[in-house]
């Protein structure tokens, strides 16, 4: 009779935790079809989210690659002597957004131009005697999005004859990439919320049938956390159970998709994310999301039966 709140608050006994585990498994078995339905809801959602994530992450990777290719080419005025060039370089390096400044002589520029054009480039070899190109500083910014900002500053500098970074296109590209990322994020969040409601509704049905059990527990003096534990675990198992098929499916699909697509895309300078560690990361993420939506759904549905 002398039960104090302190005793209740003390750490859960191993015995009690054991009971919660047993109860949660028993309940999964007892509510066989509901277990199946809830786990399926998790499965379907996680497959969608998983596939979506794989696509999003790869697009993001492509976008990052493209972003990283963006560079500012500063054509150095032919009138500049070595000292002037050095001053210009230091000024460029002084811009806070700038990461690296590389120097390329006009001879090197011509070589790479000839190389990039292949056989047609042979014609340009005539210029080797009288090179019309400028020496160039190749500037990269720490954050590709700052390219325009840095370029504008460089334009004003002495001996910077021409500043090229793909004006126009770069802005469009960055806008496009940003929009794509935002849309993807919104879609993923939307999908996750839909999943949570789907699951919480399914679990609610299982809990409805156990109303009496909860009512009796409350009546004989079980604490709310004691009542909640088995449901918490049950949600966790449902989430984990529901993430098995999505992981298998997404991993297998990615394995074959990578095999098939990677060689075809190579020519376009597009690289997909390597199978390892990407698939392990995505699997971890799917498990985590499964566990979260399972637990959340379960706790949400039990909540309204616990109002004293």
């Amino acid at each position, binding site marked *: 009779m002398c039960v104090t709140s302190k005793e209740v608050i003390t750490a859960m006994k191993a015995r009690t935790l054991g009971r919660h585990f047993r109860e949660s498994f028993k309940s999964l078995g007892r509510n066989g079809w509901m277990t199946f339905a809830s786990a399926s809801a998790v499965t379907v959602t996680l497959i969608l989210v998983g596939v979506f994530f794989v696509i999003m992450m790869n697009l993001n990777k492509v976008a990052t690659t493209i972003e990283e290719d963006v560079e500012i080419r500063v054509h150095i005025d032919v009138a500049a002597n070595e000292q002037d060039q050095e001053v210009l370089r230091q000024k460029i390096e002084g811009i806070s957004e700038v990461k690296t400044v590389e120097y390329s002589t006009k001879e090197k520029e011509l070589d790479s131009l000839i190389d990039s054009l292949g056989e047609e480039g042979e014609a340009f070899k005539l210029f080797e005697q009288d090179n019309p190109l400028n020496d160039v500083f190749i500037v990269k910014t720490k954050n590709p999005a700052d390219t325009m900002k840095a370029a504008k500053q460089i334009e004003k500098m002495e001996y910077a004859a021409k500043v090229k970074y793909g004006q126009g296109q770069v802005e469009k590209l960055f806008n496009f990439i940003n929009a794509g990322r935002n849309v993807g994020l919104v879609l993923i969040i939307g999908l996750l919320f839909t999943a949570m409601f789907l699951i919480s509704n399914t679990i609610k049905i299982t809990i409805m049938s156990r109303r009496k059990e909860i009512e009796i527990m409350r009546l004989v003096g079980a604490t*709310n956390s004691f009542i909640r534990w088995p449901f918490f675990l049950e949600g966790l198992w449902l989430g984990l159970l529901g993430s098995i098929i999505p992981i298998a499916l997404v991993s297998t699909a990615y394995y074959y998709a990578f095999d098939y697509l990677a060689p075809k895309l190579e020519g376009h300078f597009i690289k997909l994310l390597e199978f390892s560690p990407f698939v392990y990361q995505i699997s971890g993420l799917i498990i985590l999301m499964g566990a979260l939506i399972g637990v959340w759904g379960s706790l949400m549905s039990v909540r309204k039966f616990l109002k004293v």
Partner: protein
Amino acid sequence: MIDMKDVYKRYPNGVTAASGIDVHIKQGEFVYVVGPSGAGKSTFIKMMYREEKPSSGTITIDGVNLATLKNAKVPLMRRKIGVVFQDFKLLQTLTVYENVAFALEVIEEHPKNIKKQVMETLDLVGLKHKARMLPTELSGGEQQRVSIARSIVNSPKVVIADEPTGNLDPDTSWEIMNIFDEINTRGTTVVMATHNKEIVNTIKHRVIAIEGGRIVRDEQRGDYGYES
């Protein structure tokens, strides 16, 4: 043991189910709560185990004021009170033994004590030999005895019963009453809402009559006082 002072209960729909109730029930008393349907008996009973909170006034059980009790403390308070209902509220998938043991398991009683206490209690209500049966295999009276066993297995100071014989035939009702009497002789306070005129008039105890949310009569060894 139970003290109600100037207790009012108004529901959001405007119904006043308790208006100015003052009552004192001593440890070890047996009290019948009688009155016509809709008089406020159930609210009176429900406030005692804090299923309903009073709108104003104080309800003290064993020194704890239920009106100001925090929600988190309610489970601890409930462990001092056994509740029995008209519809038994047994879990159909559990055996008789498991139904009674359930009440101890969920308050984290030590397994060693559970078996002993459950068997003793089943013996008291005369169902030791049916411990392994499911509720569906029992008669109504037997099911109610399981429900009583569950309410007292934790040795509460108070047992509150809401129409415990409401679903039972007269003979079975007497058996159930004998068990409540036995529990009471062991020192447990019993508060029972009932419509059973014969029982109230035969097994004499204190009678509290409620009408329109007020106590209209409170007599030691009283009569039922209504035509049933």
